[in-house]
């Protein structure tokens, strides 16, 4: 990895002195030993005595009335302990709640078991608990459920037609859950006066996050103690606690949620799902632990999907290629219900990407269809719009006969412009977008490629290079923003640090461990700020019974918010450590320093006390300075003042067979800026992992529904193609490191960037190669078949009316993202 600026210099600027620095180094991970020894504790590994197993009967139709449920034969089977039917749920629970609501959307009556009507294949209808998973599944076979299939709709645009069957007639007249528009200026006037307008309809495929560990829950109830302990595979244990309490009509103090090791989340494991509620109800009824481990067939139908949307994009420009206005009106599919994180909101926030425009608008139409609910997935709306605006940038360059790199450079927000507010109110904090673009162009020898022209290779293949520049919103722009959007969580993180008698520091956090290496990064920050050894810091993650209330691990926000809380708590703990030691050594406090396992006088290292001794003093309260309280523990909260925007440019080189549409990605370069780097190896791992998911969604992954039956046709790992080790192109990573002014240490989020540019870069490369054939791709995934169809002029599409905006009055300046 190439890093242009040494991030460590920036660390100095915030007051971490010349100790051996841990931030900015590739420390080996805290998480690894247990995971490599098979000693992780994933939810299914939790195995309490007398545990019972749950299985769930699911609606096999996309839309059906539940006419009758007879569970008597199932209940009578040897080993079956308990059955829940829709009526039990209506009586004993409240509907499931949403964490990140769509502004203007009504609450849907979403119960843990379908009431009267199920709106997607896979929606839970009955649940059974038995002595083993096998027996519970045997019991499902004995259930007698009669369904009356109802007309269904699975296409997102068809669902908005007036004759479409309405999914939730009790609260809505149509399948439009809500429409949200934002913008500034007078884009219509700019379009009228533009020299050139490029526009297109872009279809984004339905994909799924597919963590290797499916969802799971183990619930245990002690009635005398009124204590419900819930082990779950979740990114947000504190929000699980809140949602379960609401739905189960308990107090939050009755619920303890624990997410220890999580086998991948990627946004899918945000919030309470129906099965979590069901397992708790069974456990409460039976007074025995109940476990449910989602199988993969259930996961494909009962978890969440992502990304599916149709974008009508327009860009207006003058004859020199200066962009005058940009608009995006899009329908985004939310499936049969509003899942906790529902429809992706960032498609609107960064609809203009890295380009400087003052006139623009975006309108989101959140649309219900008879499919599995859509939830958050790494990228959260950003890969979708990047594909559309970057495809249009290349089309604009072709129309104006401009170099697409120069066109991009001419329109990018510059370092001098920032902080800069885009038309919907997003404030881009800092960065050098053009430098990343130029580095990518140089890396793939763009100039040489332009000069060479489009001569086919001896094998007939044509070579193309494509670019995708992007910004990535990381973290949240304050709780004020979240409140405006109706979100029920904060923008801050909270941590507790506690010294122990062995001379170590325990860190307690509600951020669960799901591969993002937060245990390692948190320990690095604490070790650095205190001055103690990395090995002396231990992170205890994901237990609401032990950690301060927090928000959780999503939106690339963990490090941005947590770093501030960690720094502040570590400073408090270190300051008290120095005060105690100074008193004991009879030295001035400002001459004390913590160094490794001791605290000592800076100028005379022979005057030192072991940290274990000082910590013991505080813990026992014996030998404390007179004015000092006993104890050595600090809790701190931190809300970043603003979101930080990561950015970068990807370049892909492809060789395409113009007869068959087959292509190879021969090179893929990503130049990325994630601000100050806490741990270079981990950052690179996050970027590469994001790219792998980005390539999957761009090239091979697509969940397809049969329009006739409304059923998912490829809902298994045998039929849904996530990349294997042999499928991914070689990726070359380059980095810049411009510290963000709005975050502690200058960090930017890095978790999602990789998912954003692969689709646009590869599609632009293919279209560059096939420019003489007039191919302009406008749908994902990019398959040889799609290219072949485009080459033969066989592409479908066209004919459908464009999505036109519903408002003419734009809220000037947006809603402050």
């Amino acid at each position, binding site marked *: 990895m190439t890093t242009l600026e040494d991030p460590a210099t920036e660390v100095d600027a915030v007051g971490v002195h010349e100790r051996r620095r841990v931030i900015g180094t*590739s420390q*080996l991970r805290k*998480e*690894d*030993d247990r*995971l*490599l*020894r*098979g*000693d*992780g504790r*994933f939810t*299914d*590994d939790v*195995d309490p005595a007398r545990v019972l197993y749950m299985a769930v009967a699911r609606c096999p139709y996309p839309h059906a009335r539940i006419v009758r449920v007879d569970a008597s*034969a199932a209940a*009578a*089977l*040897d*080993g*079956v302990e308990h059955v829940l039917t829709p009526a039990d749920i209506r009586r004993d629970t409240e509907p499931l709640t949403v964490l990140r609501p769509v502004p203007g959307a009504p609450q849907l009556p979403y119960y843990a078991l379908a009431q009267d009507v199920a709106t997607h294949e896979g929606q839970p209808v009955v649940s059974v608990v038995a002595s*083993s998973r*096998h*027996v519970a599944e*045997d019991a499902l076979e004995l259930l007698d459920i009669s369904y009356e299939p109802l007309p269904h709709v699975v296409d997102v645009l068809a669902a908005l037609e007036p004759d479409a069957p309405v999914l939730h007639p009790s609260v809505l007249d149509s399948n439009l859950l809500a429409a949200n528009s934002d913008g500034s200026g007078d884009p219509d006037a700019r379009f009228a006066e533009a020299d050139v307008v490029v526009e297109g309809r872009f279809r984004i495929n339905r994909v799924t996050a*597919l*963590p*290797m*560990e*499916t969802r799971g829950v183990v619930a245990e109830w002690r009635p005398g103690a009124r204590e419900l302990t819930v082990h779950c595979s979740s990114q947000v244990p504190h929000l699980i606690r809140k949602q379960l309490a609401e739905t189960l009509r308990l107090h939050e103090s009755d619920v303890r949620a624990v997410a220890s*090791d999580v*086998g*991948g989340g*990627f946004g899918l494991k945000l919030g309470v799902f129906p099965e979590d509620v069901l397992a708790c109800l069974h456990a409460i009824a039976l007074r025995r632990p109940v476990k449910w*481990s989602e*199988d*993969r067939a259930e996961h494909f139908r009962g978890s969440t999907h992502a990304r599916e949307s149709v974008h009508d994009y327009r860009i207006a420009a003058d004859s020199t290629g200066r962009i005058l206005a940009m608009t995006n009106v899009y329908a985004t599919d939310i499936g049969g219900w509003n899942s906790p994180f529902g429809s992706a909101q960032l498609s609107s926030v960064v609809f203009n990407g890295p380009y400087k425009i003052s006139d623009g608008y975006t309108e989101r139409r959140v649309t219900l269809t008879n499919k599995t609910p859509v939830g958050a997935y790494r990228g959260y709306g950003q890969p979708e719009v990047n594909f559309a605006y970057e495809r249009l940038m290349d089309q604009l360059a072709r129309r104006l006969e401009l170099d697409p790199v120069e066109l991009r450079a001419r329109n990018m927000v510059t370092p001098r412009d920032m902080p800069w507010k885009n038309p919907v109110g997003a404030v881009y904090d800092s960065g050098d977008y053009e430098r990343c673009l130029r580095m990518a162009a140089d890396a793939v020898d763009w100039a040489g490629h332009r000069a060479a022209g489009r001569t086919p290779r001896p094998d007939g293949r044509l070579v193309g290079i494509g670019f995708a520049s992007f910004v990535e919103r990381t973290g949240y722009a304050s709780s004020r923003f979240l409140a405006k959007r109706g979100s029920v969580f904060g923008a801050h993180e909270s941590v507790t640090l506690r010294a122990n008698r062995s001379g170590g520091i325990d860190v307690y956090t509600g951020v669960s461990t*799901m*591969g*993002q*290496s937060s245990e390692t990064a948190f320990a690095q920050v604490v070790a650095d700020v205190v001055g103690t050894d990395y090995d002396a810091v231990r992170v205890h993650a994901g237990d609401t019974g032990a950690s301060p209330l927090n928000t959780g691990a999503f939106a690339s926000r963990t490090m941005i918010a947590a770093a501030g809380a960690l720094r502040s708590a570590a400073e408090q703990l270190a300051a008290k450590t120095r005060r105690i030691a100074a008193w004991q050594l009879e030295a001035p406090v400002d001459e004390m320093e913590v160094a490794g396992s001791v605290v000592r006088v800076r100028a005379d290292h022979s005057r030192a006390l072991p940290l274990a001794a000082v910590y013991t003093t505080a813990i026992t309260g014996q030998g404390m300075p007179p004015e000092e309280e006993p104890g050595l523990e600090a809790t701190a909260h931190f809300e970043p003042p603003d979101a930080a925007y990561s950015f970068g440019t990807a370049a892909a080189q492809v060789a395409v067979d113009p007869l068959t549409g087959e292509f190879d990605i021969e090179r893929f370069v990503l130049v990325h800026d994630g601000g100050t780097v806490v741990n270079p*190896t*981990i950052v*690179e*791992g*996050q970027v*590469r*992992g994001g*790219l*792998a*998911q980005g390539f999957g969604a761009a090239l091979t992954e697509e969940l397809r529904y049969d329009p006739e039956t409304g059923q998912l046709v490829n809902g298994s*790992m*045998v039929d849904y193609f*996530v*990349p*294997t*080790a*042999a499928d*991914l192109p070689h*990726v070359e990573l380059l980095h810049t490191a411009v510290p963000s002014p709005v975050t502690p240490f200058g960090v930017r989020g890095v978790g999602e960037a990789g998912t954003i540019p692969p689709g646009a870069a590869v599609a632009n490369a293919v279209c560059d190669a096939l420019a003489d054939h007039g191919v302009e791709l406008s749908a994902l995934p990019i398959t040889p078949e799609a290219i072949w169809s485009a080459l033969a002029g066989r592409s479908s599409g066209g004919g459908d009316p464009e999505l036109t905006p519903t408002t003419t009055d734009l809220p000037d300046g947006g809603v402050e993202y």
Partner: protein
Amino acid sequence: MTSVENPSEVLVETVTTVNGRVVTANVPARLHVADFLRQHLGLTGTHLGCEQGACGMCTVIVDGEAVKSCLMLACQLDGRNVQTVESLAEGDELNPLQQAFKEEHALQCGFCSPGFLMTATALAHQGRRPGRDEIREEITGVLCRCTGYDNVVTAIERWFAENPQGASEDPLPAVTDTIATQG
């Protein structure tokens, strides 16, 4: 509630060796090896991701070969020798393969790691010395959604380079004791 007997619950006596211990167990006929290891023996390092043979999370070594333990029944283990990820570490120390994974950052959530570790270990048992491209092909049976695989390939490549003796090691742990478990 009167109970109706379940004809599918049939037990089979099985004697097998797992990580060097002889195990005598009465296992349900339809129980697969991964569930047997996890639920009956508490060896939860073997994970499940699909129960369809497609993801490789459940990979273990049976008689020296990598096997997807979700596709094999526990009763088929009778008379065979099983090795799981729990057998790799040497006392409290990671073995060189595990150490290579740690140093090369070949894992993030770590859910897939046991599958890769057992696949690579089985290659060594077979006396194979694959190069980088071959390693890529050989591990396609195990999926990873976090890392993008590069570091996994690098870790395995490095382990083969640094441990040329790997294959001549005793392929299976020696029998140390016996345990019995109920179905």
